């Protein structure tokens, strides 16, 4: 796969619904937004057909009523695609990408611990990066979270 334009064209051909949601923001950077129901399909296509086989990381954000997830995937030529998808905070479920990117375990655990996302299909395991006795329902990277929350909860429990 060649340059940014060819990649964009290939994506739009396969996923017509991306029209208007896929943008080349600068040299070697493409940003696109996809519905969470099509996320896995899109990542699968990008990894196997477009050779975007490097998962740089997954960024999770609190954007108000939704959580946003950005999958930063790269290819050998140094082009990075920022694949964004949203999930409402009332139902913050996304599927795991472990089937496509085997090294994603820690990135996905981080989403669960720090933002309270539910990653479906992620095998049971230990917490990362919060300790195992971290209180339930406390997600530090949510915008409304303050360190005092923890102390309050502890008082209640006592």
């Amino acid at each position, binding site marked *: 796969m060649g340059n940014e334009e060819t990649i964009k064209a290939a994506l739009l051909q396969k996923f017509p619904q991306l029209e208007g949601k896929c943008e080349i923001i600068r040299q070697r950077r493409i940003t696109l937004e996809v519905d969470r129901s099509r996320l896995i399909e899109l990542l699968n296509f990008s990894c196997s057909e477009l050779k975007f086989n490097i998962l740089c990381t997954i960024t999770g*954000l609190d954007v108000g009523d939704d959580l946003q997830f950005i999958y*930063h995937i790269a290819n050998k030529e140094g082009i*990075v695609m920022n694949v964004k998808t949203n999930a409402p905070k009332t139902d913050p479920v996304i599927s795991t990408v472990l089937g496509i990117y085997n*090294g994603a*375990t*820690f990135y996905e655990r981080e989403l669960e611990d720090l933002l309270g996302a539910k990653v479906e299909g992620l095998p049971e*395991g230990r917490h990362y990066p919060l*300790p195992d006795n971290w209180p339930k329902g406390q997600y530090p990277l949510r915008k409304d979270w303050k360190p005092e929350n923890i102390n309050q909860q502890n008082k209640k429990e006592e």
Partner: protein
Amino acid sequence: MGRIEIPLGPQHPALKEPANFRLYLEGERIAASNVALGYNHRGVEKACEQRTYIEDMYLIERVCGICSHSHSSCFISAVEEIAKLEVPKRAKYIRMIIGELERIHSHLLWLGVAAHEIGFDTLFMYSWRDREVVMDILAMLSGNRVNYAINKVGGVRRDISEEQKEQVLKAVDILEERTRYYIDIVYSETTLIGRLKDVGKLSYEDAVRFGAAGPVARASGVDRDTRRDDPYLAYDEIPFNVITDDHCDVLGRTIVRAKELMESYKIIRFALKNLPEGDITTRSPRRIPAGEALSRYEAPRGEDVHYVRANGTDKPERVKLRAPTLANWASITNMLDGGYLADVPIVVAAIDPCISCTDRAILIRYPDSRNENLMDWNSLRKYSIDFYKNKGFNAKNIRMNIK
């Protein structure tokens, strides 16, 4: 044969920083393993959201003690991209020179640590002695041995003078000669080869599959280097080779790092010779316009990835950091399984783990603790002074002769 479970860490003499491994042994061999992290989580990402970009610079520089410049350069590149700042070329070159000096310091440090882990303490002392040369150079250029704080939004803080150039070149000559000797050792010293060969195997396929980064990936034949593939600063103007090796073991990782040192000397010489004239900084706004950027940087241990989203104020909306060690943890169990228990320290050391970078703690008392008080900085200091006084040591009675 029965299986024995051995916990290793988080505090263990074989580990330089806290991580926890559970090793399942069949005899001396590791049948299965898993790893737990997070003991050094400091909540840097959350803290960044509550501070201004200028304060964040200081914070991010302290994400790691070794590759501090890597993190700050990576972050600052993202901020400058959002603010559409044109950084002067001379500043880019200076950042690059500091970055390569940092790589030399990190790789020499690693070589010492690795040598120590396999009981080759002579090599450890040699390489750490030589590391002082590059530390002195860094102190001369930036004013500090670590946490150089050379970066500022829109440029760099200090210029490099003609005189300093001479000194750096002289130091690079010394280091190059020493490194030739190390490369020779790595290829010819039979005990070293015997100890490192076929230890901590990671095949090319697994390195790609688990997304290994930096020298770990390159030692498994994965030809990847952000400096070449996704050039930042002015790396697209500088000739250098990406070092790969197909040993796929700890020996390979040693070879790659040793040879990368030679490339760094080349880059520094070229950058100093072609150092463009001009300003070293440009005016930068306090508020960064709304926008987002992803920036990648080839740190000594592999690829740093920073994502910054700005909201038009003087504080970022979100800062996401990914240090290379996190990428390499995914493949560590793969390297350990099938190997010997005695190899664990060197296999772990061989990914050059930096747990501060990776974990980035929130200082909160444990939920089950009854103690209401957290120790603040002053009481911690008082505690430590009293602790030593009780042992009969009073710092006030010491007279130092500072020349």
